[in-house]
């Protein structure tokens, strides 16, 4: 048949296949947002409905330091992405390490907060509704940070052994999207847990 005679201008080519990592990550972000929104709704719905103490106002302190660390890590990972796009692997490794360090600080701070809540304030996941919803929402977020930190560590190890090159910039940006998403979720969790309902 005459298929060979039909030519199509390049502008008719659909979205290019090398964008598929980003599109896939957007899809994952949509799905993850759906999961988080249910936990946020549960938190808001149950706010103030605990029939016993402690209440958020009694025990929660706004984690300013941890939040600043996590939000800054969005900036450093963005700088790292820029560096690898330009092919500056050394700079990339540096910013990548700082990102990981900030993420780990956030996790350590969350751990310290939980330790204080559990051992000094007597708030566990089974104490009351506040405990149940607080630990599950903050814990779900911390779980995502942990997954992100594992990913960051993996890529950092690859960088140390010379496995990361300029051609991987696109894939690193895909991972960067996940990290930005985790930070964006913290904006929601922070406002809901520490400001709106406290």
């Amino acid at each position, binding site marked *: 048949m005459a*298929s060979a005679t039909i030519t199509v201008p390049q502008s008719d080519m659909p979205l290019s296949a090398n964008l598929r990592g980003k599109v896939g990550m957007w899809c994952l972000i949509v799905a993850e947002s759906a999961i988080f929104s*249910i936990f946020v709704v549960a938190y808001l719905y149950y706010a103030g409905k605990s029939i016993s103490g402690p209440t958020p106002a009694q025990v929660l302190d706004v984690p300013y330091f941890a939040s600043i660390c996590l939000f800054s890590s969005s900036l450093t990972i963005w700088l790292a992405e820029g560096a690898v796009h330009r092919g500056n692997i050394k700079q990339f490794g540096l910013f990548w390490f700082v990102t990981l360090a900030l993420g780990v600080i956030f996790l350590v701070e969350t751990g310290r907060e939980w330790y204080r809540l559990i051992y000094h304030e007597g708030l566990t996941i089974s104490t009351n509704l506040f405990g149940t919803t607080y630990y*599950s929402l903050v814990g779900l977020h911390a779980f995502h940070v942990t997954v992100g930190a594992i990913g960051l560590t993996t890529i950092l190890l690859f960088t140390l052994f010379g496995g990361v090159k300029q051609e991987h910039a696109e894939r690193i940006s895909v991972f960067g999207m996940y990290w930005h998403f985790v930070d964006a979720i913290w904006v929601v969790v922070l406002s809901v847990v520490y400001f709106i309902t406290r």
Partner: protein
Amino acid sequence: MADAQPMVPPLMIPQEREGSRPFVQVMHDWIVTVDHKRLGIMYFSYGILALVVGGIEASIMRAQLAVANNNLVSPEVFNRLFTMHGTTMIFFAAMPIVFGIANYLTPLMIGARDMAFPRLNAWGFWMTALGGILLYFSFVGGFGLYGAGSAPDVGWFAYAPLTSPAFSVGHSTDYWIIGLLISGFGSIATGLNIMTTVLCMRGPGMKLSRMPMLVWLNSVMAFLVLVAIGPLTAAQLMLLIDRYLGGHFFDTQAGGSAVIWMHFFWIFGHPEVYILVLPAFGILSEVIPVFSRKPIFGYNIMVAATIAIGFISLSVWAHHMFTVGMTSYANAFFVASTAAIAVPTGIKIFNWIGTMWGGKITFTTAMLFSVAAVAQMLIAGLTGIMLASAPFDWQLGNSYFVIAHFHYVILGVIVFGVFSAAYYWYPKVTGRMMSETLGKWHFWLFLIGFHVTFDFMHIPGILGMPRRIYTYEASRGWETWNLIVSIGVIFQALAVLIWVFNVIRSSYKGKIAGSDPWDAWTLEWSTTSPPPDYNYAELPVVRSRRPLWDLKHPEDPDWKYE
């Protein structure tokens, strides 16, 4: 032109015949495969297996309910049966089947060589498979061997507080939770994959506005998977926290709410209906034009209606909860949104009729199933509109009327659509035609069985028979209706047996199909049957919605008019 050459002659790579290789090798190839066609076949076969298992469970229930005061199975076993039947059919039959069809056809229809993420695709399938295995492992693992209850018995939507540790002793409910959680991860992976494939992998010239209807409907389905499975995952995590860590999400004694589980479940549960029915609509939209010899009527409106269904379906969930006692504002909202979703669905029905109108219709088995599905969608939609009205629902909610309504959708539209797809694409998948004679037997027996069962099932519902009762007194006036309903099952089971026999027999006895047995217009028919591993040696170039028509009719191509 019925036997047109493949549009692009595939590169002939000499391949060893499967039969000549050791069985272990063949099995190994299937297990490690990342090919979208093989995974599609695996998804589909897995779904059919679950369909048969779930069907057997349904048959036992119907045998139990055929006569009054029956004691074929105990009440406990009956509870397990309806829970396993619902869970199996929704999560491990219907979803794998529609995913299988989407997996097999999406890359072929858009002119791609594979899905966007082939390995993720395999991961998704095996997660779904693992979920189903875990669910069925509960028969052994859910303390079954110790006699302390086996298999989940909390119903497929597992309302709180029945699922709390106090009322669900043992691990059967945990198998239900974890099985669904894991298969949910697989579903999200597949939804993500379909979405990305549609957005990024289309071949040259395949604009969004030229995609086949099935691909459009599958991409809306994939979007719904992404937004709807998450709430189920979240709710299951909360239930696990309640059961294992002493949380209070659904613990009413600690201020928790049982109703919020219903909300969370149905926020997933109602879009789920559309996750299943949209691919069926897509199948109808492919089969009906080809056998009416007309392009689909109102392509743009069809796409718009699909997207409208996708969005509205996210805001109708609480019509499952009218009997719970919500505020009148909430009732009014969900009545209105549920009534609104009938509009785009109605548009689709008119478009299918418009496609057939004045067409040169050939009633192949595939077409028969599709036409029946359109008619049954109308009836299912009408009972849906009745139940959407809150006062009517207060009367008949949780009765057999509701059971009849949603089985009309799930069997009458989704299963009929799936059978239609099976007859239509079987030649493409296997290279051989299915027997039309057996197909007609399958169709008519299934049609009779379906209507005997589900038409008459509405009546005991109106007479007040509630769902999920294991038996009933003889004096209620329900006996005759229940007996008729149960008799229909025999016809359906026979029909499915004929179909399975047809599938197996045709795979080695069927007539050789050639690449384009139906004289169809979409890209998958331009490659050989079965398609080579790489689908297209040279990516086909698309200029209209019916690329194969353009090739067969260079004197009168579609792209002149679009």
